[in-house]
């Protein structure tokens, strides 16, 4: 792509039109630069890993995409058309769903209420509970997610089960783009494996996934492409098949610049 930022080399070519495209996104908090001139593309049916050190701008970028933060400059395109993403509601209605690090589930509510939160099937405001149950069962079976019951409070579920509920919610709400914020943080080995499997199933189902992770093993296990942020700028973008863990670490830490000199 020619529109890549200056700091990015063009080694990562991808065919077709991006599903989601960000151009020249900048965000400042006072004098603190959170994002500067960041370009970003997400293609249909891919898992894109977003990596970077703490404070690199990953969270801010995700918040821009999910409508939680409004950028100071820059444009967002969905399907090639300019998109207005100025609130989480906007993002959800455009089919962009974020599964946040703290999961954003309501512990006191049951699985069913959480799966449909914000998008309950309803007529005249009255909730169609039967449709909720049928849809929930269908999606959970499809993803082979096993949850003891749809009517227990989410607060009593395990970390992996909660992650599954959060992902199930994204699917049920008809999302096309699912953003996973540290999906494997604080999970055990077995649960991590299941969540990664789940991520791959999402791609198989034709969805696009943006995955933030600190764990490069997990990134290399599932991602198709890897985008690296550092100091609020995009400093690299690689296909998984064409890069190595060492190269990604160099991009994250910026040591390569010293090497180049």
């Amino acid at each position, binding site marked *: 792509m020619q529109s890549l930022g200056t700091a990015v080399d063009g080694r990562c070519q991808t065919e077709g039109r991006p599903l989601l495209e960000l151009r020249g996104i900048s965000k400042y908090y006072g004098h603190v630069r959170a994002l500067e001139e960041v370009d970003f593309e997400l293609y249909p049916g891919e898992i894109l890993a977003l990596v970077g050190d703490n404070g690199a701008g990953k969270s801010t970028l995700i918040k821009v995409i999910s409508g939680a933060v409004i950028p100071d400059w820059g444009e967002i395109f969905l399907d090639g058309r300019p998109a207005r993403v100025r609130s989480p509601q906007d993002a959800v209605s455009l089919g962009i769903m974020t599964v946040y690090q703290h999961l954003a589930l309501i512990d*006191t509510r049951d699985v069913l209420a959480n799966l449909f939160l914000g998008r309950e099937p309803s007529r005249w405001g009255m909730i169609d509970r039967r449709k909720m149950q049928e849809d929930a069962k269908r999606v959970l079976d499809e993803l082979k997610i096993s949850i003891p019951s749809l009517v227990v409070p989410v607060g009593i579920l395990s970390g992996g089960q909660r992650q599954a509920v959060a992902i199930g919610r994204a699917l049920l709400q008809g999302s096309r783009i699912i953003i996973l914020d540290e999906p494997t943080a604080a999970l055990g080995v077995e649960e991590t494996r299941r969540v990664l499997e789940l991520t791959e199933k999402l791609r198989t189902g034709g969805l696009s996934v943006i995955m933030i992770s600190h764990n490069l093993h997990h990134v290399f296990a599932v991602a198709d492409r890897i985008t690296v942020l550092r100091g609020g700028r995009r400093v690299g973008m690689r296909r998984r098949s064409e890069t190595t863990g060492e190269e990604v670490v160099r991009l994250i830490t910026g040591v390569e610049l010293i090497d180049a000199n």
Partner: protein
Amino acid sequence: MPEPLPVQPIKPQIERRQLPVRFPRLRLTQERGVAVSIVVLVVIFSYLQPRFANLNNFLNITRQGAEPALLAMGQAFAMIAGGFDLSIGAITGLTSAVLAYAVLGFGLVPGIAIGILLGALIGLTNGTLIARYRLPPFIVTLGMLSLCRGIAYIITGGLPVLNLPREFAYIGGTGYVGPLPLATIIATTIFVVLYVLLTRFKFGYYVYAIGGDESAARLAGVNVRQVRTLVYVISGTLAAIASVLLSSRVNSGQPSLGDGSELLSVAAVIIGGVRLRGGQGSLGGVMLGVILLAVLSNGLNLINMSSYVQLVAIGLIVMAASVGSVIRGRRQED
């Protein structure tokens, strides 16, 4: 082949648990506890005072419980949404005074309409200050309590507003449909409507959602500000309807009406098992809480216990209920 054996009985069990069982088991326990307490109280009072155990007295209890029920339902909305409404008692007083003047000036129906509208507007003010300007509900509604009570005394000079038409007394006092007091029917109807609203409508789901985790609700696209504002409109409106019934029962406008009733409503809500920090609880439980307090008050009156004893009894029950609520909360967080 011992392996497949345990699998088969487990599967249908999971299927069964996925049926629409409405409430988690823990909460049912609290509601059952209150229900059992009511039965025990009824048995004890019936034993101590034969006059307690007759149909007329039971109907009387439902009529006496009508206004506390309306106030407690409003309080329940506020508390499930993670807030508080201390102003509902004072709204009752101010509405009573204003609606009495309005009935005298504009007639019965317009007067009542003005009164209910006033309650809704005060609730809207509370809700706007809390939801839009993010002021703490405790402070806002405490201020509103003082404001409303003060205005009620100022416009009436602290005196009751008398000479209301006799038909006005019909609504909350002398009115009966068959054997049932009209006030009971009004309160029950409103209960059914609000119960459906809370358990079957998006709005109700969002009331629970913002009480359970406001930021999670916001991220999911819930219009937190709107829902929170509406919650206080509901509690204000219910306080005004309670005021119509109470004013009707005394057939006058009373600026001191509902003094202290806001705390009684909190008591009923806590006894009813609403989670102290919001997000959980049922209107059914709250109604049981109201009934428990109504039975207690009626029974203690009939066995000639002073109202001081009633205060002590209510205090002890609230403490016991909140201990139960906290223990359940801890258990659930484990």
